[in-house]
């Protein structure tokens, strides 16, 4: 089946080229070349991986044979999505100092993973975080909960990547936003359905190295534009920003103490609970490699984030703000604020570098959506189909087939939602997607790995309440209720609701486990000794 892969893919390419030939858009030959090169490289990777992916273990976790360093680079790639390159620069561009919350969160999240979680994850799980939370509790209902949480958080994360990809391709080629979203959706389905984790990992590694190199060159060229004089760069940024000096002071996002606490908790705990990131710790042979993965990922992410904080975001403010070439008739940035780093690349590196950076951004998005889709598909096939519906009677071939079918459905859903969320700020959407992971996955994981008193009843009640409250707060809040559904006022008027739903989940899991006097609860506590006694 995989031998037919490139034919299916390249039927999509003419649509892009044709659109790029349209007379009324910003065409860039280098960009088109780079764009097609990225697609070509990733398809070759997928084609080669497809021939080596047969068993469920190979499909989900690449047979656990990725080295620590390779996995670390792929892990950094999994984290560094459209939000890192496009969204965070856009947040700092618009709101100043407060945007660095988004830059700091991953360092803490990866530290938590390396220090507190890797060993226990490896000891208690096999393919995904669902294995961990169902290991010592009654498996079927726990798997339904874990799979639901995985699907909701991963699909929300997918949507924002679609928004970024759509905007990027629209600006680059002038093709319709909807067509751009469909193109990205089709590519991600192909990567995952055919290549599984092996293809996804190598696509991630390729993309992560491209992204880090691109960011290094962008920072270098930005400094070069100011004669390597950081003070001159900052002075121009301060002079150009509409808020003047206020943009370097806290308060740009108007969060207040509780808002800041909620946002940072959502980002950190959400990253720690992200299924597609947790899945990476099962692709290496042992716990030491898993810790090494986290460290390599941290270093790469820290380098990129530091460069964005110290050079790229200030340079974007200094060079894009007020630059008529990059403003539309209303004075807004062309393509939306998410595009400021792309515009910056053209200012400091010309159309050639614009093409390269656009291709890097596109590769970034493609790789992340592939990882997310794989995590979602595994929730359907491994947790729901193989363990709950077929009660461990499904063969490996059947499980992989279901995963491939699920990939198609998830891709379709992501395309529809990606079109519905057009124009939303990517980094803001990240915070909302991570809210779900922080409220449902993170409490379950921490309690499963560290608290002997956890029972199935407590986990189910608290886990479902955490998931439902997070989704409800997001849907009833400003992002969906007002911006997407068009109502005048949000029902739940909190932009970053993570703190509320996290507290609900933690409190309810503890409460319902603590006062669970059932026979099953007693068995759960006894089983906990077997699992947690080894640490």
């Amino acid at each position: 089946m995989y031998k037919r892969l490139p034919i299916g893919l390249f039927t999509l390419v003419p649509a892009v080229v044709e659109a790029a030939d349209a007379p009324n858009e910003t065409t860039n030959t280098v960009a088109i070349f780079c764009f097609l090169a990225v697609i070509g490289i990733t398809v070759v990777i997928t084609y080669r991986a497809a021939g080596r992916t047969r068993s469920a273990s190979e499909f989900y976790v690449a047979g656990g044979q990725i080295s620590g360093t390779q996995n670390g680079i792929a892990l950094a790639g999994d984290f560094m999505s459209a939000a890192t390159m496009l969204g965070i620069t856009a947040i700092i561009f618009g709101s100043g100092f407060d945007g660095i919350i988004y830059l700091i969160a991953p360092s803490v999240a990866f530290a938590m993973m390396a220090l507190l979680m890797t060993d226990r994850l490896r000891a208690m799980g096999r393919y995904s975080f669902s294995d961990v939370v169902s290991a010592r509790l009654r498996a079927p209902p726990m798997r339904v909960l874990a799979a639901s949480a995985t699907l909701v958080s991963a699909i929300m994360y997918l949507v924002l990547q679609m928004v970024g990809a759509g905007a990027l391709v629209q600006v680059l080629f002038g093709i319709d936003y909807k067509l751009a979203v469909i193109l990205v959706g089709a590519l991600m389905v192909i990567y995952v359905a055919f290549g599984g984790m092996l293809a996804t990992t190598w696509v991630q590694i390729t993309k992560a190295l491209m992204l880090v190199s691109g960011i290094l060159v962008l920072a270098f060229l930005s400094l070069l534009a100011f004669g390597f004089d950081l003070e001159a760069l900052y002075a121009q940024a301060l002079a150009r920003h509409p808020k003047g000096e206020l943009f370097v002071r806290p308060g740009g996002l108007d969060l207040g103490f509780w808002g800041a606490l909620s946002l940072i908790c959502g980002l950190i705990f959400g990253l720690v609970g992200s299924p597609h990131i947790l899945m990476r710790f099962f692709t290496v042979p042992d716990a030491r490699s898993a810790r090494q993965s986290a460290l390599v990922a941290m270093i790469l992410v820290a380098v990129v984030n530091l460069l964005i904080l110290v050079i790229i975001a200030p340079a974007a403010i200094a060079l894009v703000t007020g630059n008529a070439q990059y403003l539309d008739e209303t004075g807004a940035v062309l393509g939306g604020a998410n595009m400021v780093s792309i515009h910056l690349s053209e200012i400091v590196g010309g159309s050639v570098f614009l093409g390269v950076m656009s291709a890097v951004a596109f590769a970034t998005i493609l790789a992340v959506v592939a990882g997310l889709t794989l995590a979602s598909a595994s929730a359907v096939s491994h947790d729901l189909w193989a363990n709950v519906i077929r009660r461990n009677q499904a063969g490996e071939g059947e499980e992989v087939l279901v995963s491939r079918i699920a990939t198609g459905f998830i891709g379709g859903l992501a395309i529809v939602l990606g079109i519905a969320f057009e124009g939303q700020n990517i980094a803001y959407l990240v915070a909302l997607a991570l809210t779900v992971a922080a409220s449902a996955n993170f409490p379950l994981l921490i309690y499963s790995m560290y608290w002997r008193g956890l029972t199935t009843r407590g986990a189910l009640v608290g886990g479902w309440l955490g998931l439902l409250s997070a989704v409800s707060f997001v849907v009833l809040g400003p992002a969906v209720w007002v911006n997407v559904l068009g109502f005048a006022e949000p029902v739940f008027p909190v932009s970053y609701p993570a703190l509320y739903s996290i507290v609900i989940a933690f409190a309810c899991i503890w409460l319902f486990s603590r006062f669970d006097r059932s026979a099953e609860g007693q068995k759960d506590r006894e089983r906990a000794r077997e699992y947690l006694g080894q640490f």
Partner: protein
Amino acid sequence: MRRTDKNRGWIHAVVILGFLALFIAGMAGWPEVFALRLFGASYLTVGILFGSVAIIGPVVFTALHNRARKQADVDV
């Protein structure tokens, strides 16, 4: 579990919570908590320094942790 391992777990938890508290303090609009502001440094300087330390700090801490774990594995 050996006592040293338990202590190490608590130290990790405290350090992570410390980083978390630091971030929240900085984010919530209290840059004055950082001594630099008291010495008259600009918001820009404090922001860049604070951000850099907050990004790099956990990386250094994790690197030291991994090194110690590797050494402990060798010792065992």
